[in-house]
């Protein structure tokens, strides 16, 4: 057992931590958010130059062959900065789908573009009634003289508004919720019959609604014709990444709150001198640390090939992160009093981000139900 980072991992952590500390102060972030894309073009270039976009790809493809632990290192830092750039959508979702689903030739053609910042990706899978079920796909793909014709709509496609290409799920065969027959396409949003409407999300990021009406794509755009197991694996990796991001955000809320307790004075003393608030911030710390442990567990288990074991671990982590984040977020606001309620102050933005993370790919209770149905985490003592 070894919780220490390798030398390379430590270097990676130092550099992303520095990036966030130097260039992602809250006031800087406000400026980035006002750019047309909803994030900073210069920051995207810088993330590219640091090589972070190639994280999941092999060196021959312009990457550095990182895994879930490296991803977690980056996402933890991005959580502390509330980073707006489409890293998660492009690299974690898009890169993950490319790496796991694409043929060698497609991967060979596209991965270097992703790694060099020239190809931004997104993944559309949510439909009106699919909620958190990845198999629930009503969008259809019909074969037509060597092409596919897509019809349907995808909601809340994270960073779908600025993506150069978008992965979408569409049903090739089977009933609406059947596990078989889910196709994964990589489409150009400029295709005739594709519309997209971009908008801000509650946490200051961006997303899009995508509609597909008689949208004709080529057979080569079908990346995988029975994609669900692959998608589930990529989403498990994505959840692990979001867990790390949430831990970074929680840590920041804990830091801000602690600082505030030491400086805010009421009744002639620092409010941190009230024992009740001391205990409340101790409980926040406990929640953050429990979450950190489970985010680590998720990172380690994200590569597990046995899907049941992997999913149970990921679900357990999502439960812990969701609960910890809700507790830490609500307490952070409460202990700040009125100032915690204002948009001009950072703590509320962390709160909003972790709230959105909770409901991405299944909220805490959805994962708890799944885990309970699987018989929990611990078996009989051997």
């Amino acid at each position: 057992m070894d919780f220490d980072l390798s030398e390379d991992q430590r270097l990676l952590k130092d550099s992303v931590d520095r990036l966030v500390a130097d260039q992602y102060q809250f006031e800087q972030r406000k400026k980035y958010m006002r750019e047309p894309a909803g994030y900073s073009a210069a920051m995207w270039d810088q993330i590219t130059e640091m090589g972070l976009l190639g994280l999941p790809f092999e060196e021959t493809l312009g990457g550095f062959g990182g895994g879930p632990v490296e991803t977690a290192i980056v996402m933890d830092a991005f959580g502390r900065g509330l980073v707006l750039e489409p890293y998660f959508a492009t690299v974690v979702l898009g890169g993950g789908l490319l790496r796991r689903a694409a043929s060698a030739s497609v991967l060979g053609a596209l991965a270097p573009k992703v790694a060099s910042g020239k190809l931004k990706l997104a993944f559309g899978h949510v439909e009106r009634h699919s909620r958190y079920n990845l198999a629930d796909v009503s969008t259809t793909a019909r074969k037509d003289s060597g092409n596919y014709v897509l019809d349907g709509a995808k909601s809340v496609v994270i960073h779908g508004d600025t993506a150069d290409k978008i992965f979408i799920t569409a049903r090739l065969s089977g009933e609406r919720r059947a596990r078989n027959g889910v196709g994964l396409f990589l489409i150009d949003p400029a295709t005739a019959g594709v519309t997209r409407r971009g908008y801000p999300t509650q946490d200051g990021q961006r997303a899009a609604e995508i509609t597909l009406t008689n949208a004709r794509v080529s057979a080569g755009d079908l990346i995988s014709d029975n994609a669900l197991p692959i998608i589930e694996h990529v989403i498990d990796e994505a959840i692990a990444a979001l867990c790390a991001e949430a831990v970074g955000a929680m840590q920041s809320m804990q830091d801000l709150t602690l600082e505030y307790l030491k400086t805010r004075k009421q009744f002639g003393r620092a409010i941190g001198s009230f024992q009740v608030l001391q205990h409340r911030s101790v409980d926040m710390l406990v929640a953050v640390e429990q979450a950190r442990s489970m985010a680590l567990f998720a990172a380690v288990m994200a590569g597990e090939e046995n899907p049941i074991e992997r999913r149970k671990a990921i679900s357990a982590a999502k439960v812990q992160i969701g609960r910890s984040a809700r507790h830490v977020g609500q307490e952070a606001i409460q202990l700040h009093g009125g100032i915690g309620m204002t948009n001009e102050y950072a703590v509320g933005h962390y709160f909003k981000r972790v709230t959105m993370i909770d409901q991405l790919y299944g909220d805490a209770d959805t994962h708890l139900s799944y885990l309970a149905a699987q018989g929990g985490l611990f078996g009989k003592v051997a």
Partner: protein
Amino acid sequence: MDLNFTPEEIAFRDEARHFFRTAIPQSIRDKVAEGEGLTRDDMINAQRILNAKGWCTVNWPVEWGGKDWTSVQVYLYQDEMQQANCPTPIAFNVSMVGPVIAQFGSQEIKQRFLPATANADIFWCQGFSEPGSGSDLASLRTKAEKKGDKYIVNGQKIWTTLAQYADWIFCLVRTDPTAKAQEGISFLLIDMKTPGITVRPIITIDGGREVNEVFFDNVEVPAENLVGQENKGWDYAKFLLGNERTGIARVGASKAKIARIKELAALEFAGERPLIESSRFQEKLAAVEVELKALEMTQLRVVSDERKLAKGRQNPASSILKLKGSVIQQQLTELLMEVVGPYVMPYQRDFEGNNEPIIGPDYASEAAPMYFNYRKVSIYGGSNEIQRNIIAKAILGL
């Protein structure tokens, strides 16, 4: 002990139910149900409808438009009003400044302000909190110096809800800087149009504008705008805050939210079945319903006890109502977010106002903002920590 209503009470309830559901425009009640912000006109219109029936200021003395209702009637009135998603009369007018003026003001000040306050001809806001004085309200520093027949007011208030709508502000100001903190405070009424007042908005985390900073720079206030006696403002403020807490339980409003959550959870799917059929969801909702029923019974007990208290005295148990009521309201916003699922994400409140169709179901857009916004209810009106301090001291004697 009898928990059944008498035939007269049932008749009263039915009258209230009918009135609230017919007299107050549906468009206004829909906004309340959906958590959409009310305009200034919405609030004033709704209040005037109530006032015309004599049902606006029921908690005031009878001679000033109050009702000599039984505690059960008061409860039924509030409960039916909230369940029908009627806007509560402007709290600053009806539960805060009105009762203070009626209780402590001179005859002149009563005549001058009470009818206009009841009819929302004056829209009030509350200037208590300051940047350095939140929970420790008595440390407030905005000062009012007596110069002839005027007070000269200098200082700053913060978190002033709806100051942008207000015609007048009731303020706690320091009139004796040498006295003990609580003993140098006065309760002053100030016209918002007076030169030297500046209002600056504060945007909250849900993106809404409901609170403000209010700055006073050599603001001249006629001395006759003082309520009661100089340097007795702290007593009046305590009286006011106690009233504020009873209103804050909002049991009827929570019942309306539960009804709405059930309705919407029938429209959203979790797998192949509507969410409302998920036993996990049912149990979570039922657990909150148990808490709410208990709170309702507690409220009835507090209200009925209060009738027996000497006028102007507060029942410290009102802190229990604030504590529990705020937490239940917050839990319900969490459940509503859970109902909506992925469609909580789009941020659809914009200040420019575009006419694009709403994303996702039409009930989705306010779910997350409401959750964020409702964090305030455990902060304002005396935070839940302060309520616990009050209970520890006043009930437990610690």
